């Protein structure tokens, strides 16, 4: 460590941002300390029911990441922990962490839950937002990691009085509970810090007019998520907390605790519009009746990718009512029904009193007081609302070098932006610590694998009591006896907890003693425990795929608690089936491919350059190709950023960094003529004839400005697009700078039938331009004609300022667009005013059009060459809308910037860094291994029919030498091709049809 830097990173906060940052760093050669205040990782995502705009189940998409993060060798998770002190400098921080006693040893606790069953103390369950109860010894949610309970010391009877209780101790057979456990101080050294402590929901109790806390049927949006959730307090049944009645009419109130200057929460919380629509749509799905849903809003801010379509569908197809109004008050209809009345004025000023069964408050996002305190302790600059202030155009750099910010701490964010910022922070950390990569990581050595291919199967069956979880229902000795008589079984035994450390030793001994070459564990879920046992297999010198599990707990003892005999029969059957499969198991070798440690970045705009610089700083060789003859892209036309940044200076600095870097090669005036290969090994031919071999591809080909066909554009020289208007201001064009009146028209080419998406940046841009015009000439009248003002996040502050400075905002309807007519050198704009309902005529000197951002023109070419799918609007489609925002279905190809969808420059930079962070997980490895089981082709049976090639979403199969070939590194192991193959030439390792059929045979053998 010549630089004195430390190759480890501390990540504070284990929500989705913390998990993603940790995984990215750990996969790139850094050791990670993941510090989490609560007893489990996961953050807010596990509480959500579905996620917009895909309606994915939140827990389902998160759960694999929880397992991956929890079990990662190079991620040390410190739960119940808070950071107390940070000293030192970038590259070398000394951190003190206070770990509160959990009172349960997570290494011993098996998560069986017997303690909680016995615990007599019921307390409000904060995971369910207080709508349900948990015990004083508890696990936040079923899939929580660590899969261990914790004691709430403020509620535990024994903690208050030693002799008062102790029921949990009696029932815990793992001896994991220790009421005497002490708090600890942990000192660590890290090279950088990533802060992603998340948000706290706004508490609406003090806003009396909403009646929250007073009226039981007024709930927060997070409470409503729990009501909708299948794992929530009502099992997913839509009902009111007050009387359990299913509501027929529900209202959502937007901007509760957001866009409210009176309480000094002037910012927009960015996510509430979408989550409210989602909740309304999902509630309608859950309802047996025709649920009436209304959303009371000020501006509908569905500005993200595919959000506008979601809004359109909700409004037009799913029948959600949208009422544009900031309500006055919620009151209760009467004591008995507890129904609610909302008093509001519509746009015309007409007063209404409307009754609802239930009202949901769309509460905003705030930084928690403890987070603000942490920020202050670290000396970070915070904005007026207590969120971390990030350095201009960095996306993730805090005011202190070496400390990065991800997720909602930097401002309210939805899940994909949170994940994106986490990957970006990981990328930035890695840039800082490039020279100490790989210095702190742990690796495990396993003994060489025994060759068992010539041996007959000798199966060992290990049956678990899981304390009382299995044993009290299923006759475990009986199951063991049955197992002993099964074909190929050489050993069978019972264990109190087969997952405990000493049991692992017993398994290894049994393998040795009985010369076992297959292992079956009959216990709990393979989801949580298979990796543990597979590791034991490797320690014993056996291939980890010669292992199989029977779930006789979750799928048997727990669900047939009252039928012990039948449960025992079932457990025997499950073991029988798995043993039948195990006999046919074959070892699985992980295939690997070499990685070319080089990156091809397509597109030399701000995004491409930012990405290249980040990767070059980490020592990787980068080749940027740019179609035009200079670097800079669209940014060359932009003067000022949304926070007032000098964009030209920023771009010049990027170009300078790119051109002076030894690791970056630039080819301008160059495109791609041919591409082949796959992750780790791409081979791309450029239009100049050069051939580039690279391990990673980053597609950052930008977007285009829509050239309007409306509003006299191109017909009158005082009609500009936003970018042209900015250029005109910079050039001191008198048409603009000396104008008396200027009209800015929003949504030109966006949010219409042809382009049903929001271009995201135009509202902010127009507000910023209006402010700029006012600055140049305070007397100019600027009119902004808009449909919804979408100044999300802290940009709301610009909107407030613009109104304060006298910019006039007039709303128009999509059905009744403004009309622009020529009047000599000047223009005349007619628009129907939203309050008056009457047309008003504005004589104006210039008109600025907020022209849409279009998909890049080369999108289809890139789509063909790199197999990155496009969405309906022509933008590149990410691998997963929520959790993989820069990855694509084509492994090793990443997307960033406008090519992915409209975004601000700062957001593009963050995405570029995120792509760098993700790319690093590939580049930092010498070779890539296939993950788990993959599909395998028997070429002599293959008819080259193309079924697999056409079917596979990951482009893993291709035809070579007249037969299909599956690239193991690309194969995700779903087996869809195996299931479909007409000549059964493809099989999925460990899930061959013969194995499954053998399971079925074993089950029915006696019956037949």
């Amino acid at each position: 460590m010549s630089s004195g830097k430390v190759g480890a990173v501390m990540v504070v906060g284990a929500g989705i941002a913390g998990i993603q940052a940790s995984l990215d760093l750990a996969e790139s050669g850094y050791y990670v300390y993941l510090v989490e205040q609560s007893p489990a990782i996961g953050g807010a995502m596990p509480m959500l029911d579905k996620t917009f705009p895909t309606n994915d189940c939140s827990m389902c998409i998160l759960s694999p990441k929880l397992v991956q993060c929890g079990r990662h060798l190079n991620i040390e998770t410190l739960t119940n922990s808070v950071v107390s002190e940070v000293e030192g400098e970038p590259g070398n921080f000394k951190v003190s962490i206070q770990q509160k006693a959990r009172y349960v040893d997570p290494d011993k606790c098996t998560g069986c839950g017997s303690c909680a069953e016995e615990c007599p103390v019921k307390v409000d369950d904060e995971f369910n937002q207080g709508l349900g109860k948990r015990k004083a010894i508890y696990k936040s949610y079923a899939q929580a990691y660590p899969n261990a309970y914790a004691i709430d010391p403020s509620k535990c009877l024994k903690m208050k009085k030693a002799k008062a209780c102790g029921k949990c101790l009696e029932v815990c057979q793992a001896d994991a509970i220790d009421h005497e456990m002490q708090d600890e101080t942990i000192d660590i050294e890290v090279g950088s810090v990533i802060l992603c402590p998340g948000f706290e929901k706004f508490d609406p109790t003090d806003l009396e007019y909403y009646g929250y806390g007073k009226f039981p049927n007024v709930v927060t949006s997070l409470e409503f998520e729990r009501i909708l959730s299948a794992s929530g307090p009502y099992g997913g049944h839509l009902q009111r907390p007050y009387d359990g009645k299913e509501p027929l009419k529900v209202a959502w109130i937007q901007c509760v605790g957001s866009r409210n200057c009176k309480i000094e929460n002037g910012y927009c919380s960015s996510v509430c519009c979408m989550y409210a629509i989602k909740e309304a749509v999902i509630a309608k799905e859950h309802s047996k009746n025709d649920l009436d849903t209304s959303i009371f809003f000020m501006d509908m801010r569905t500005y993200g990718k595919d959000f506008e379509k979601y809004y359109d569908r909700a409004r037009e197809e799913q029948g959600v009512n949208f009422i544009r109004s900031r309500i006055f008050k919620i009151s209760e209809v009467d004591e008995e029904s507890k129904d609610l009345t909302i008093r509001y004025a519509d746009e015309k000023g007409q007063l209404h009193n409307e009754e609802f069964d239930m009202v949901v408050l769309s509460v905003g996002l705030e930084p928690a007081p403890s987070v603000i305190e942490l920020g202050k302790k670290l000396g970070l600059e915070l904005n007026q609302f207590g969120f971390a202030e990030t350095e201009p155009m960095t996306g993730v750099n805090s005011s202190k070098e070496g400390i990065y910010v991800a997720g909602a701490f930097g401002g309210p964010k939805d899940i994909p932006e949170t994940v994106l910022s986490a990957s970006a922070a990981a990328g930035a950390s890695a840039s800082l610590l490039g020279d100490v990569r790989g210095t702190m990581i742990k690796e495990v050595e396993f003994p060489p694998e025994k060759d068992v291919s010539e041996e007959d199967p000798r199966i060992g069956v290990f049956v678990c009591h899981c304390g009382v979880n299995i044993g009290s229902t299923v006759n475990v000795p009986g199951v063991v006896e049955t197992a002993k008589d099964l074909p190929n079984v050489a050993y069978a035994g019972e264990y109190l907890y087969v997952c405990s450390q000493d049991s692992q030793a017993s398994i290894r001994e049994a393998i040795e003693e009985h010369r076992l070459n297959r292992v079956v564990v009959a216990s709990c879920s393979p989801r949580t425990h298979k990796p543990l046992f597979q590791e034991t297999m490797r320690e014993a010198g056996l291939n980890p795929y010669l292992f199989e599990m029977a779930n006789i707990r979750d799928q048997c003892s727990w669900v047939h608690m009252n039928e012990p005999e039948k449960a025992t029969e079932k457990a025997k059957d499950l073991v029988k089936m798995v043993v039948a499969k195990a006999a046919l198991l074959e070892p699985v070798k992980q295939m690997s491919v070499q990685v070319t440690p080089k990156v091809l970045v397509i597109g030399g705009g701000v995004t491409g350059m930012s990405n290249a610089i980040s990767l070059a700083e980490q020592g990787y060789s980068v080749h940027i190709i740019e179609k035009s003859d200079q670097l800079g892209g669209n940014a060359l036309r932009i003067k000022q950023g949304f926070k007032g940044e000098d964009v030209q200076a920023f771009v010049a600095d990027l170009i300078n960094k790119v051109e002076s870097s030894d690791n970056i090669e630039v080819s301008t005036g160059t495109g791609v003529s041919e591409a082949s290969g796959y992750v780790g090994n791409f081979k791309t031919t450029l239009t100049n004839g050069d051939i580039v071999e690279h391990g990673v591809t980053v597609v950052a080909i930008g977007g285009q400005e829509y050239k309007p066909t409306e509003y006299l554009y191109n017909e009158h020289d005082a009609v500009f697009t936003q970018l042209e208007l900015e250029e005109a201001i910079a050039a001191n064009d008198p048409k603009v700078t000396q104008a008396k009146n200027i009209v800015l028209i929003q949504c030109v080419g966006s949010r219409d039938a042809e382009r049903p998406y929001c271009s995201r940046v135009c509202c902010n841009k127009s507000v910023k331009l209006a402010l700029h015009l006012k600055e140049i000439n305070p007397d100019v009248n600027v009119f902004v004609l808009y449909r919804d003002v979408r100044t999300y996040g802290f940009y709301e502050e610009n909107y407030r300022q613009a109104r304060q400075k006298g910019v006039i905002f007039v709303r128009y309807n999509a059905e009744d667009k403004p009309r622009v007519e020529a009047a000599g050198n000047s223009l005349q704009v007619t628009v129907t005013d939203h309050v008056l309902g009457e047309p008003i005529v504005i004589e104006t000197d210039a008109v600025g059009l907020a022209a849409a951002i279009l998909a890049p023109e080369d999108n289809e070419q890139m789509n063909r060459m790199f197999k990155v799918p496009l969405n309906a609007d022509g933008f590149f489609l990410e691998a997963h809308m929520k959790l993989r925002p820069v990855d694509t279905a084509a492994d090793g190809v990443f997307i960033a910037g406008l090519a992915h969808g409209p975004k601000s420059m700062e957001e593009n930079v963050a995405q570029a860094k995120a792509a760098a962070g993700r790319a690093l997980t590939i580049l930092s490895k010498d070779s890539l291994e296939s993950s788990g089981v993959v599909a395998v082709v028997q070429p002599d049976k293959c008819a080259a029919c193309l079924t697999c090639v056409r079917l596979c979403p990951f482009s893993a199969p291709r035809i070579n030498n007249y037969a299909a070939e599956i690239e193991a590194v690309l194969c995700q192991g779903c087996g869809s091709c195996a299931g479909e193959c007409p000549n059964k030439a493809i099989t999925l390792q460990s899930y061959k049809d013969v194995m499954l059929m053998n399971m079925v045979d074993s089950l029915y053998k006696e019956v037949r």
Partner: protein
Amino acid sequence: MIIAQQKSIQDIASMIEDCNKVLLVGCAGCVTVCLAGGEKETEVLAASLRIKRRLENKPLETVTFVATRQCDPEYIETLESYVKDVDAVISLACGVGVQYVAERFSDKWVVPALNTNFIGGSLNHGEWEERCGLCGDCVLHRTGGICPIIRCSKSILNGPCGGSQYGKCEISKDMDCAWQLIYDRMKALGKLDKLMEYQPPKDWSKSRDGGPRRAVREDVMID
């Protein structure tokens, strides 16, 4: 390739009503590619027939085998050991395969499991279209690579009929007029003059003129 589709299980079952044991022979050629007669379909059909017969209380024993091709005698030879002790053979090949099996095992009851539809290619996965009329005297060089014999409803060889409207055939507005396609393509190629060339009457003797046709290439014959 040859495009074929499976007959109904009912129909196939009725062909082997009085058999107790049958051999199902798939073909790894065209019919595997068009998803009608590969190993999967062969085994699915076998299982379906077994279940059906058990329901009728007349259990059926099945043996399955997939031949590399059923249109070459050598591959049919490989069936011999399986054919011996069965009452019937169900061939999941095209009509050619069924006949080859029947000829080779002349004392066996051999039945087809597929209907052989046409010679064509795939449009999408699971969707095929006829493209060749097997006329024995290819005219594609004169028609811009578009076969009027199979793609024109009337197989007209000299331009469209009166039923061609807006580029569509009168029999269906979803069907392109082949001659419109031919004209457009030849125009795009700058070869419209080719369409004006005099064509002698087509030699239909090379098409289906009674009895099976035979193709011979002395140069590749071995003996």
